[in-house]
């Protein structure tokens, strides 16, 4: 049995220690907001926080997460940075198909939590690991900047 703390709740899971966190979340615990995209840490769709740091859960063995705190998209809105990011995402209508957005938001929330006013270069570094095939990148960047500026403004220019 491995004991995991996910979104503030404790879960005992009977899995092999090398099983990636992604599949524990999705197929064992049942938190499907975290997505499978590539399985080799190349797309960022599976990004979650481990003690506040963004990790690619598809290549992170569950043994690494034991004793630490996992935060997923389902609970990121309870953190100040996560809430700001989600609000900005809604205000700027970032998502299209939405599949990669959990990972985008987790990477952006981690960035904002550590760097309240990120530069373009810092946004590049933090977000270049998250692929979006719908191509929402222009709005991802704009939304991070808006989140950094303060509370999201409802509505927007046409």
């Amino acid at each position, binding site marked *: 049995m491995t004991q995991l703390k996910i979104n503030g709740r404790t879960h005992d899971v009977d899995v092999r220690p090398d099983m990636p966190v992604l599949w524990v979340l999705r197929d064992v615990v049942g938190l499907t907001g975290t997505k499978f995209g590539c399985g080799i840490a190349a797309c960022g769709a599976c990004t979650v926080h481990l003690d506040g740091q963004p990790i690619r859960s598809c290549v992170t063995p569950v043994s690494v997460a034991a004793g630490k705190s996992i935060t997923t998209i*389902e609970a990121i809105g309870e953190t100040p940075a996560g809430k700001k990011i989600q609000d900005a995402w809604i205000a700027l209508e970032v998502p299209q198909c939405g599949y990669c957005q959990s990972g985008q938001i987790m990477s952006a929330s981690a960035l904002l939590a550590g760097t309240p006013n990120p530069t373009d270069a810092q946004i590049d570094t933090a977000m270049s690991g998250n692929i979006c095939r719908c191509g929402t990148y*222009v709005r991802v960047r704009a939304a991070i900047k808006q989140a950094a500026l303060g509370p999201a403004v409802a509505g927007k220019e046409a």
Partner: protein
Amino acid sequence: METVSRRDFLIAGSAAGGGLLLACLVGERPRPAATGAAAASDFAPNAFVRIGTDGGVTLVMPQVEMGQGMYTSMPMLLAEELEVKLDEVKLEHAPPSDKLYANPFLGFQATGGSTSVRAFYEPLRQAGAAARTMLVAAAAQTWNVDPSSCRAQRGVVTHAPTGRTLTYGALADKAAKLPVPAQITLKAPKDFTLIGTPARRLDTPEKVNGTAMFGIDVRLPGMKIATVAASPVLGGKVAGLDESKAKAIKGVRQVVRLDDAVAVVADHMWAAKQGLAALAVTWDDGPNANISTADIVQGLAAASERPGVVAKKEGDAPAAIARSKKKVEAVYEVPFLAHATMEPMNCTVHVRKDGCEVWTGSQVLTRAQAVAAEASGFPPEKVVVHNHLLGGGFGRRLEVDYVAQAVRIAKKVDGPVKVVWTREEDIQHDVYRPYYYDRIAAALSPAGKPVAWRHKIVGPSIIARWAPPAFKDGLDEDAVDAAVHVLYDIPAVQIEYVRHEEPGLNTGWWRGVGPTHNVFVIESFVDELAHATKQDPVAFRRALLAKAPRARGVLELAAKQAGWGTPLPAGRGRGVSLLYSGWNTYMVQIAEVEVSKAGEIGVRRVVCAADCGVVVNPDIVKAQIEGGIVFGASSTLWGQVTLKNGRVEQSNFSDYRVMRLNETPAIDVHLVQSGEAPGGMGEPGTACVSAAIANAVFAATGKRIRKLPLQPALAGSA
């Protein structure tokens, strides 16, 4: 206001459990009796509009949501006429039914080809207006007043003289017993309160908190997870299988052997993946074992020598080119492309004794049902299909291969099983954008004007496989889309198509369909002509667009916004591209690229001007263009799938490179205000960008790249 007679295809009746149902049969004309309450028993349990006695309005979405905003723009069309608030309506995925939910442009239930708004702009407004008219009539009857003294707004009917009100919920039962009005009056565009506004997307909140449900997120009691490996060579078979090591892995439950694939069924994806890796499979590669990309290109090149089916002919272009003193000729090539939707292919199936249930994300729901029926052996009415949000479509989910395969696996599994492809499986067993090989030539007058234009397109026919009745007289209209629509004023034009099927892989739809390859060729070649006659690329185009004012309008707007003609630093260049095609959208993009000393191409800025007629939601249109540009820029710079010994050489995002945030250009989109009929908007952004980038690379380096993707071709040209 527009008054239309639509009694022939609108039907109304009582909803199960009370309330008003309204369906709009766009795919098939109903029997004449199917109007009014008498036909209520004819109703499918779902229709476009359902108004409950509690006032709840449910809109059943005929078009699927794959990012293109259909779950906002479709309800906007309905809500505008129904007079309900957009954020108060509930949305449901339509079940499979070509009768109720056919796309009028395609003739069956399908989302693709940038058709949704064009196809449903009238029918959904008519459905909303009909329901509103019936609710008003029900209120007028209740109060015994003239319906014209009543008005509907925000889900409430008000009798203006007395101020009496009734909610839609209170009126739903009564309205359901009324006949569908013979005449429906649509709002005048000047009275629109929703259409034309950047209304909030209805699907955004669930997409930022992890609750959005994609096919891959389905969880059922007792469900197993499977992952699969199909023959690495198309047409190959399983020759031998040792499953002992796989079965020893904890969590692995079963190994399923199909003719052409093996699957490992497990408690979770990790065990399934481990199990698949542990399987010892020997494959009989079959007839495609030795095919490589070069063989396919050789076949295309040979086919390009054959005369084609003439898709368009004005004047005698071949003769004019033959006798011309100044002619330009070129061969252009575009590669096979994968879709690489972020959500890998997946499908969940439960085969029971008496039927089959399917959960997936599909652009063609009735086809998913039909193929599941065929694979399971049940009649279609015994196959229930639940659709979901699509984690990207781009044409990949216009195919149902993954549904058929999942059903074949599920037939051998006791209980529900979710079949999830790995990314490697997804890239290597896609239905690829074909390789096209084009010959193009033009004759130029002494004054530098093109006087003859000949374009021969060589490639497989997707339509012949996907929609056989639409393939007529050897011509695939998609393959020549945009090529036959060239707006430049050229007296002699000949467009030909040579069908040449490509062995070794399956080919199909990809975002931007025909125009994606043709606009690259046309607009690169127009640039060649401008250069050959030492003319500015924008001025050269403008001079040929005297008879195409909308195209000229977007060209001038884009040139102005992009600062066309202003100086750029060394290593930078601008390129222009004009798109017009069967989508009936006019678009110009101007790309600015930077080519480093090492030859690395970076796209820095793209300015886009578009005239797509009436815009339902400008913010969604802008998003489609922004995203379309990124999707097209990815493939333009890096995208290619290659075959070696019958096997796809790419496998994941590590070797099938796609654009990332740090590589994304600044994108400025400018929409032209227009009252013209709506044009398609999901794909033009993608189709227009390739030539803009290639022309900018030429401007920056002097190198004309006629073969995509650009980055390896530029490196090879050094």
